[in-house]
């Protein structure tokens, strides 16, 4: 519904109107470099379950203790940045799970 009414008086709230929240603005800081992937297994330490969606950004550096996607034996795999590892493909910035039966 438009807040600008065509009859009667304009709303006093009009000047305070803000954009509604958008999950993209929370999960994605760089659209060009962010890719969505799906976890093929669970990682208890990270509360990741099989089928969870991973928000992977190629533009930011992996922090120590962070989670990254690397290439391992020619495959994309998760890697906890605690030790030296394979070439980094991108950094996991968020984990998304939709509850099917919630």
């Amino acid at each position, binding site marked *: 519904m438009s807040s600008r009414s065509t009859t009667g008086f304009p709303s006093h709230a009009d000047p305070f109107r803000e954009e509604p929240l958008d999950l993209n603005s929370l999960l994605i800081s*760089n*659209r*060009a*470099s962010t*890719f*969505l*992937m*799906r*976890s*093929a*297994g*669970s*990682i208890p330490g990270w509360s*990741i379950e099989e089928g969870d*969606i*991973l928000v992977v950004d*190629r*533009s930011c550096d992996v922090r120590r203790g962070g989670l990254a*996607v690397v*290439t*391992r*034996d*020619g*495959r*994309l*795999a*998760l*890697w*906890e940045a605690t030790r030296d590892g394979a070439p980094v*493909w991108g950094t996991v910035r968020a984990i998304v799970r939709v509850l099917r039966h919630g």
Partner: protein
Amino acid sequence: MFALCDCNNFYASCERLFRPELASRPVAVLSNNDGCVIARSSEVKALGVPMGAPYFKEEGRFRHFGVEVFSSNYPLYENISRRVTETLRSMVPDVEIYSIDEAFLHVDTLPPAMADPGGFCREIRERVLRWTGIPVSIGTGSTKTLAKAANRIAKRDPACDGVFVMPDGKGADVHLGSIDIGDVWGVGFRNAPKFRRLGIRTAKDLKYTDEEWLKQRFTIGEARTSRELNGRICFPFAETPKPRKSIRVSRSFGEPVTDVHTLREAVSSFAFSAAETLRGEGSAASKLHLFITTNPFGREPRYANAASFRFDVPTCRNTEITGRALACLERVYSGGYAYKKAGVILTDLVDASNVQRHLYSVERDRREETLMKTIDRLNLELGRGAIFTASMGIEGRRSWGMRRGHVSPRYTTHWDELPAVLPPGEAPKQ
């Protein structure tokens, strides 16, 4: 100054993005319907496979050398192309998209680029590779034609490491002398033999050819190319691409088509799709062309024909466009042939809002317009093919559908086709 950024073997690079094991393996991408090779990784180029080679001729060689073959996955390429453009825009405000894998950058207004063009281009290159995973080559020059030539050198000379800055004036001559006349932007393979006969064999030769002489022997176009090679701008930077002059929907059939009914379904579908694109661009078409052809490589009897129709009033209506396309088909169809390809081309496009309507059909037009808008919206919301005309036949029963035996997942545009990531430490599955 212009910079031309060109993605290296773009489709092949896209196929490698989520398949790191393909990084050093030969990759080839096939055209719609798996007809010809349309993208080759450097390993496939090294095998001597030419661009556009028919797949059936290369299949044996591909198997022998372990070439990874893909059907074209346009949803993926289009998505990655947009990411590359967005990355370029993060560094250069003026980006002119030239094709799915090429863009001109206008760098005159950027002091760091003007101070050190090579260094700036290397930064762009690194960022595009980092953000999108796509390797690019960048060439710069004082005109688009020179930037295009510089790009060619950047891509081919390993010493350049993907970036080449074309020097101004006579400094360019040694580089232009190494570029074959047929590879100069705007010359094309058709005119190249004529140039060679006249002793103009390289870009440098064309640069030093008299303009008036060129205009007499060729056209104003070739004279302009020569002027551009001299560093005088004839093709200025244009941010917005020109509206298309024509819309073409054509396809090779999965199986050869021998009956007129199937051909009618295919042509209806092409007409529908062309009309949809037309409306999406806010255009109307004045002319329609239809063509049908048998397999040019086959041993069966060959036949090809085409017909055109000019609309009294430019149109973007499904009913009219489909109806005329089918009428054209009736005119050219000849029984007893196995058809391999058909297409509908709409030309002489005009702005739909400027079209003069017939005096008496205003009410009918309005209703048609509402119908078209509703169909387009439903197809956008429910997915392509939700609404179609009966003459297109039912999907699944369409034997003329595309053959795409090696298509990769639509990694970036479908929730159920996202790339999978293995957990840490798990051995890779074979």
